[in-house]
């Protein structure tokens, strides 16, 4: 299961549509098992495409939507019904057979669309941002379901999305696309741990990319070998009050840069339920993001001590 991840306008939807045969390919070929599919019309490719908003047929019931690809192949009626019931059970919508798509919620519609795509028994299932139209909580649940269902049905899938959470939740492999080209490809863990370049790192959710002396300072504080550029996540720097030893403080030298610590001046503060988000002017590094434990509210201009979490850095 491969996810193509890219910002909007990076050409990932065009890629998907070209694979599906909905858009002409201007250069290169689309191959499957060595056979060139470039001139084959969409309906003979055997690639089912699931749209961002499902594209259920509003004039058909849920059961008739799911049975649509089966009826195209003239399966007999009872076989269609059995298979539709199985698919609806698989996506967790047993009993929804006679509902009309308009009466369903967004998540239910996407499940029906998935069942319909699976009914086509595609050689390859193409998913166009299948979860991005849903709200955050539902997206997490449905992503897990999607992964389970695709695994259970043994379907090869190609997912395009701009949302790294969606990609990480569903896919085994990841290709990052920018300006119409694939800039990095690998397993989700590899791509996550070693982004190919600064832009990729930022797109993958890293907060900042530090270069030169700043990168060396941060890496030194993390106890890692020096490099010319490093991507840091927002939570890579943990802040605490300067001059008061924290539980994890090992140097006993608050306020000074040591092997495991940095110091800086608070530039801005914002409290969220889980943490305190700071922007700190770090000595020898420059401006950087940091988080503090909830309940502690430093003022702008305060000195803070910072600890670097090596697991939340990616050397570029």
């Amino acid at each position, binding site marked *: 299961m491969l996810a193509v991840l890219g910002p909007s306008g990076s050409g990932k939807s065009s890629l998907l549509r070209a694979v*599906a045969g909905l858009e002409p390919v201007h250069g290169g070929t689309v191959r499957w098992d060595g056979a060139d599919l470039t001139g084959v019309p969409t*309906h003979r490719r055997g*690639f*089912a495409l699931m749209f961002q908003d499902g*594209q259920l*047929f509003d004039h058909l019931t849920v059961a008739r939507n799911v049975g*649509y*690809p089966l009826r195209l192949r003239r399966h007999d009626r009872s076989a269609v019904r059995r298979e539709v019931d199985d698919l609806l059970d698989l996506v967790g919508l047993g009993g929804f057979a006679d509902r009309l798509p308009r009466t369903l919620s967004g998540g239910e519609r996407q499940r029906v669309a998935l069942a319909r*795509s699976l009914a086509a028994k595609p050689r390859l299932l*193409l998913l166009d941002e299948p979860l991005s139209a849903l709200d955050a909580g539902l997206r997490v649940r449905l992503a897990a379901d999607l992964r389970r269902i695709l695994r259970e049905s043994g379907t090869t899938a190609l997912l395009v999305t701009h949302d790294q959470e969606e990609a990480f939740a569903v896919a085994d492999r990841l290709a990052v696309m920018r300006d119409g080209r694939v800039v990095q490809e690998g397993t989700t863990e590899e791509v996550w741990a070693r982004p190919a370049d600064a832009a990729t790192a930022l797109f993958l959710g890293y907060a900042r990319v530090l270069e030169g002396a700043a990168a060396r300072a941060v890496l030194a504080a993390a106890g890692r070998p020096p490099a010319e550029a490093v991507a840091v996540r927002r939570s890579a720097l943990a802040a605490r009050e300067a001059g008061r030893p924290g539980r994890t403080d090992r140097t006993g030298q608050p306020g000074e840069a040591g092997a495991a610590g940095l110091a800086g001046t608070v530039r801005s503060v914002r409290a969220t339920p889980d943490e305190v988000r700071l922007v700190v002017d770090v000595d020898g590094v420059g401006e950087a993001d940091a988080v503090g434990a909830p309940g502690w509210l430093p003022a702008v201009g305060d000195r803070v001590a910072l600890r670097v979490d090596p697991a939340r850095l990616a050397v570029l």
Partner: protein
Amino acid sequence: MTGGGSAGTGRLLGLLGLAAVPTAVLGLFFLLPVAGMLERGLWPEGSFEPGAVLEVLGTDRTRRVVWFTVWTSSVATAASVLLGLPAAYVLHRLRFPLRGAVRAALLVPFVLPTVVVGIAVRELVADSGPLGFLGLDGTPVAILIGLVFFNVAVVIRTVGAAWEGLDRRPAEAAAALGAAPWQVLVTVTLPALRPAIVSAASVVFLFCATGFGVVLTLGGVRYASVETEIYLLTTGAITGSVELGAAAALSIVQLVAVVALLGVAARLRAVPDPTVRRSVAAPTRPRRRDLPALFVTGGVLAAVALPIATLVVGSLRRDGAWTLVHYRALTGVGADAGGNGGGLLRAPVTEALGNSLRIAVDATWMSLLLGLLVAVVVTSRSRSAAERRVRSAFDGLFMLPLGVSAVTLGFGFLITLDEPPLDLRSSPLLVPVAQALVALPLVVRVLVPVLQGIDDRQRQAAASLGAGPLRSLLTVDVPVLWRPLLVAAGFAFAVSLGEFGATSFIVRADVPTLPVVIYRLIGSPGQLNYGTALAASVVLAAVTALVVLLVERLRVPGAGTF
């Protein structure tokens, strides 16, 4: 109600004030004449006697007329839809050179005066015409050709506009699930187009069933529809004596049928969600599988061009030679029975053209004014269910002239507005008012979707930025509305120019309009008269076509759809 009591009352009063003018005009010049016609039929001697109506309905001729109306309308509707669907696809989904020109050309028949359509088809199927060898002259098939010629544009425009706005993705989803192109068409595209197709078909059926000029010029006394029968009865053309009671009885039948049909059509008409921004799918280049549709479109184009070409050629030929004599005769008053320039008409044909243009200008501003008021009332945001119901009833009321036959209207004018205090028969405004009412539904249908399409939040945004009501009208509504207003004006003008049904009843003999003169000329013996009628038809067709082509240049999406 979210607003306070006084604000609600104010809104309601404002609404009623806006609605008052169009309602009064409609009441006086539409409902009153139609009611007068009902009275004439049901209360023939001052007492209620529905028996007379039933008696008329029981005669063989009436039954024949009704049956003829139903079957010709059904066949013509089916043919229009079958020919119009492929053409709608080609003209609204494919990209090819001269697409705009072809689209405009196919709109022309719809606004061509029905009398002209009748004459053109007659020229086509006459023994001497290009299709003379088929022997269709004087058969119902000729009438069918005329009806389809006139109405196929309605299907193309209405279905085409829906097709253009159709989301491509459901069809793509079906293709990705393994549906072949024809399966996509049957299972996805046609169901999505069904509201537009049903709407177009019901309007076409309505136009066919109440079609007047085409059936009268091609069918005469022999093949009469309900509409022309009413006319023939009132003019005494069938038995030689005027039979107003029978005509009124038929009008009642027609009115009931048409109102029922309009009700069905309104129920079936797709009401697009005005908050959804209409997107127009980018047209694609034709592919091999589009060949059949392209072929049908070419055929439709040829079928539309052929009668017009025949008409033009006929107007330019006399005794087997090319000549302009028929056009020169336009300045004359027609030939008498002896074939000399003795004076069939009271005024030269050119003067009739002048009358037509003057009347059309009057009818245009009247229908624009009324149409704009109706559209504003119908589309303002309703604050309660009752208010919404009032508005939709109001909307339906002003669609009535679409279906109530023009002949019934003209006939009603004739019998109700002839005595003080409403002796308007000699008023020069009577004809424009009648024509404005005939054009009104078209004007309303152009303006309503546009006003509905203006998101109310834009006005709210303007207000929140400090614009007063007038300012927000000028900055939000007017920029969007002026082009559709011009389009509506063009349609109203064209409809007025060609209006024949109502006008033939109420026009004053000394101020005839061009369609009326044309009908006089073809009904009179003499080759010169017929040739002059052809020449006058060409002139009338050219003027209306010019107006429509100008309108088409404005490219208002969905103009001329139902």
